[in-house]
């Protein structure tokens, strides 16, 4: 395969890879022309509304649906009594548990806000009102409310997450300087602008689902398994998505309910999950607790890190939020120990939320590093540079690329870090205390195969076709750039079709893996399409190049001509006409040559089984970040404002710096929310999330966000991906919360170890 010579990032103004193009679909979204899942006009549509539990644990004894059924427009009420005929699906890896029924409306109540019934009616309003008339009788059992509930216990040790080398306990005990602290984060939520929901329509034994999806193929596979049908008969359509942040990568119980209702009714069914129901229909980021002990020599050389993490999970599934994910790879340390536990409580199973694992993990270790710096009376920047990891101490492998030192030094220079005074509470402006802090972040390079199709049409336009998705991160745009560059046509000549499980296979848009994966496939298909066009032009009858004696042609700026110049020069349209072709279609994938069976392909697009982690080869591959924060805190009120931020990133080559910067800034803004505002508040008596709406669950507003300067220090990393990029979507949030907590300490002398840092904690 040909690899295009990478350009220096940010210097391509021509719209090729590296160009700062604006998002192609942006104007559609701004003008309302982009159609979202619940907006497709569908005939004869019925509407479902969920009834959710109001207790945290117990059993549904009976459901009285009499009044609901009698309510105007109601067609059907589904309850735990109804056998919907579903089977459990395989997990993300494709591992199928023993075949047994799946009850999306279960009799066992495992958390407050669990869906236990659904009302289907002619209109959404009728269904919603009737849902209030469903009377559920429970037999309550005693719940575990949260990780802090004494009944929660210590949780289960996750052996696969135990990490260690050297003798951390002994080295810690022998260290002359030690710190140990516990850090907590609360339940946090995705709060995507577009709430969850779907429209399901059966045509005979074929099923079409319009649902926002971060993974059209994987979701189609899971739906097919639930309904014991062929994967090919399920189609997920998801061209536009109003944000996902990890929440839209799998079908959820409400989806099974809507599809089953559509089958039972013989009518298409739409189900809109209300904003409050979005807080319990799928899990946000788990609440975490971690204890970190650091040992260092008197001159600040790390001797040992001991990490113990506990995170909430549900009572029916172990979901570990890996608080030990960033801990082992940020610093050079010869003695390390990390253990992680999951603590089952009566909550919906938590899930992946931007930067899963790495995010709370970095919060812990990056807070602890600054605590150590203050204990040593050392500049926290100096401490980080002093303990810089020259290789990955966990895997023992060299880094592919790691420009974290450059991120730290260039970020510090842009921020003006050298003007900092070491003492806490030493910078103020009247009643405003000012503080500066640093937080480093990391996110692994996760690689996955993908497939793509390039279509050259008779009119000369080029289509890129992929079942991958764009939830706002820029897939449409960078795929057009990738195809344009590889083919040699202007980007304006390229159209991109995405978001349909019938289209070529792709990895999930999660784990920051999609861009690297799908640009690889599009690049490969586009190069093949170019070679094919040139081959046809040289050899086909009718081609004006056939008899010119040229043995190579080039395709540049949308024109095909002899590489040595002279002779005919044709546009793609003219060439297609000369060739007498309506269409040229080239499909390529990035699976290994020896893994191309239909089964291999299905596995690759619908499970995670072919996904490779950051150390699966000879190298350790990650994106890196260094955040520099200034906070201003009202001394009397404890109110914190982030007043300045500089963040420097190593994400390898940037395919489109404009879109990357907006990904980074979006992550940083979410990090500000995490540090200062976001917290799912749970009633201690019944486990209800009581701030399940956008007025009470606070995310940052524009007024909370200062000017954010982002800097790229990356170099192309061709081990990480075909075009040299590393993931950009998640690393932006990782390290922001500790940078803010560290700045708050510098400003006030108070170390707040539980997020969010609200005003009463500083008063």
């Amino acid at each position, binding site marked *: 395969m040909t690899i295009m010579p990478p350009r220096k990032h940010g210097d391509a103004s021509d719209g090729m890879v590296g160009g700062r193009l604006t998002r192609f679909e942006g104007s559609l979204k701004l003008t309302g022309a982009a159609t979202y899942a619940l907006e497709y006009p569908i005939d004869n549509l019925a509407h479902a509304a969920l009834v959710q539990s109001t207790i945290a644990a117990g059993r549904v004894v009976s459901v009285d649906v009499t009044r609901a059924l009698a*309510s105007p427009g109601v067609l059907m009420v589904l309850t735990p009594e109804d056998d919907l005929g579903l089977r459990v699906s395989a997990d993300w890896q494709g591992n199928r548990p023993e075949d047994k029924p799946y009850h999306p409306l279960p009799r066992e109540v495992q958390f407050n806000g669990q869906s236990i019934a659904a009302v289907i009616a002619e209109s959404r309003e009728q269904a919603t009102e009737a849902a209030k008339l469903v009377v559920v009788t429970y037999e309550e059992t005693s719940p575990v409310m949260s990780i802090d509930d004494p009944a929660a216990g210590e949780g289960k040790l996750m052996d696969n997450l135990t990490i260690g080398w050297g003798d951390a306990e002994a080295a810690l005990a022998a260290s002359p300087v030690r710190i140990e602290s516990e850090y907590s984060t609360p339940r946090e939520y995705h709060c995507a602008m577009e709430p969850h929901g779907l429209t399901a329509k059966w045509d005979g034994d074929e099923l079409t689902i319009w649902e926002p999806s971060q993974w059209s193929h994987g979701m189609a596979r899971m739906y097919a398994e639930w309904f014991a049908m062929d994967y090919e008969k399920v189609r997920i359509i998801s061209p536009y998505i109003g944000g996902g942040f990890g929440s839209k990568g799998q079908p959820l119980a409400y989806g099974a309910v809507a599809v089953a209702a559509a089958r039972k009714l013989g009518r298409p069914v739409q189900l809109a999950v209300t904003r409050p129901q979005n807080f319990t229909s799928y899990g946000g980021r788990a609440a975490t607790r971690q204890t970190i002990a650091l040992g260092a020599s008197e001159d600040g050389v790390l001797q040992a890190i001991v990490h113990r993490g506990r995170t909430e999970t549900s009572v029916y599934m172990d979901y570990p939020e890996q608080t030990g994910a960033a801990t082992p790879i940020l610093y050079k340390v010869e003695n390390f120990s990390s253990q992680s536990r999951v603590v089952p409580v009566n909550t919906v199973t938590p899930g992946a939320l931007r930067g899963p694992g790495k995010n709370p993990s970095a919060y812990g270790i990056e807070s602890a590093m600054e605590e150590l710096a203050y204990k040593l009376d050392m500049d926290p920047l100096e401490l980080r540079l002093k303990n810089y990891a020259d290789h990955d101490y966990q895997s023992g492998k060299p880094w592919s690329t790691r420009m974290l030192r450059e991120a730290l030094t260039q970020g510090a220079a842009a921020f003006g870090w050298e003007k900092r005074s070491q003492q806490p509470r030493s910078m103020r402006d009247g009643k405003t205390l000012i503080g500066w802090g640093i937080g480093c972040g990391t996110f692994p390079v996760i690689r996955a195969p993908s497939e793509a199709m390039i279509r050259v049409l008779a009119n000369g336009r080029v289509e890129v076709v992929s079942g991958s998705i764009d939830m706002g991160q820029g897939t449409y745009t960078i795929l057009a750039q990738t195809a344009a560059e590889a083919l040699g046509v202007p980007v304006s000549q390229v159209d991109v079709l995405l978001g349909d499980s019938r289209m070529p296979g792709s990895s999930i848009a999660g784990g920051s893996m999609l861009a690297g994966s799908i640009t690889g496939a599009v690049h490969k298909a586009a190069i093949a399409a170019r070679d094919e066009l040139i081959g046809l032009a040289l050899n086909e009858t009718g081609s004006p190049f056939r008899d010119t004696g040229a043995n190579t042609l080039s395709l540049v700026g949308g024109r095909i001509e002899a590489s040595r110049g002279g002779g005919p020069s044709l546009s793609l349209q003219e060439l297609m006409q000369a060739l007498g072709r309506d269409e040229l279609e080239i499909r390529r994938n990035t699976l290994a040559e020896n893994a191309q069976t239909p089964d291999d392909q299905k596995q690759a697009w619908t499970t995670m089984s072919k996904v490779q982690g950051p150390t699966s080869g000879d190298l350790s591959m990650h994106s890196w970040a260094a955040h520099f924060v200034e906070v201003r805190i*009202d001394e*009397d*009120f404890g109110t*914190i404002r982030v007043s300045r931020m500089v963040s420097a990133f190593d994400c390898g080559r940037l395919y489109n710096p404009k879109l990357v910067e907006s990904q980074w800034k979006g992550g940083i803004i979410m990090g500000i929310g995490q540090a200062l505002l976001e917290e799912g508040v749970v009633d201690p008596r019944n486990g209800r999330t009581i701030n399940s709406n956008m*007025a009470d669950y606070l995310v*940052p507003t524009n*007024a909370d966000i200062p000017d954010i300067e982002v800097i790229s220090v990356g170099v192309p990393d061709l081990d990480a991906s075909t075009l040299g990029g590393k993931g950009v979507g998640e690393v932006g949030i990782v390290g922001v919360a500790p940078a803010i907590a560290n700045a708050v300490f510098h400003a006030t002398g108070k170390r707040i170890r539980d997020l969010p840092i609200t005003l009463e904690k500083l*008063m």
Partner: protein
Amino acid sequence: MRDFSYLRASTLDEARQAVLQAGASILAGGTTLIDLAKCGVAEPETVVDISHLEGLSGIEVTPQSVTIGALSRMSDVADHSGIQAEMPAVSESLLLAASAQLRNMATIGGNVMQRTRCPYFRDPGTFPACNKRNPGSGCSALGGITRNHAVLGTSEHCLASNPGDLAVALVAFDAVVDLGSRRVPFDEFFLLPGDTPDRETVLQPGEMIIGLSIPKSAAAKNSTYLKVRDRQSYEFAAASAAVGLELEDDGRTVRDIRVGLGGVATKPWRARAVEQALIGKVLDDATIKAASLLAMEGAVAQSDNTYKIDLVPRVVARAIETVSTDKSGGLA
């Protein structure tokens, strides 16, 4: 589906007649009413839309007072130059409330009548006990999460705070509520919860707010609204104060001072003890601080909202400092 009838009132009398019926609700901007209908709290049988009534949206500045029609939008009042000049705290309280979109929709009458943000009040499906919604059913907030609940004016039956911002300025500057047939001083318009938290105001069936009148005063002219909260915008107050100050001719002694409190009381709160302690005094840091502590006289905190007891006096003190330094560039 629950049906309700919708009446678009074309005259004030028609509207008044209509709201005499049991189960009738006035609809103005709808930003509270529709929200509460979605939560299942408001279940009106008749919705009486007054938003098209003529003559209720004027703002008038006379030599004695500022009058505001009940249908004036929050944004129009906030942006009114006469109000900004005569009573800046009124304008500021509106600009710091809700969001731009809501302020463009919401009316002043609806704003005064907005309901508490108590999460238990707003989730009837899960928390049947709420004396405000359902008299005698109990109070789910007791023993629950109370970070945003009131510490002043509470009773064992209800501790929901009044969330409004404008109301804080109105109570401070002695606004009068015009109900057409009678006029009620703002401080008397709202009721303490006592054992009837379902009754929030003195409005009788068939009555509605026609407008407000705020007397001009030197204190109102030199006033400020200070709102403290975690999020910079679009959040209700953890604590707020509307303060106006008039000094004697010596430029140092307090002739008149007004202190209203928000986010901490079951109704818009007038901190008269603070005012009394300062009238006739020369303002200095110590005097302000000592007087501000009186704002919390009689406060009763729950476990989650004790911080308000410390916060409120600091907010009051800062607001007083602001209006006293604006005059002379430093404390008198």
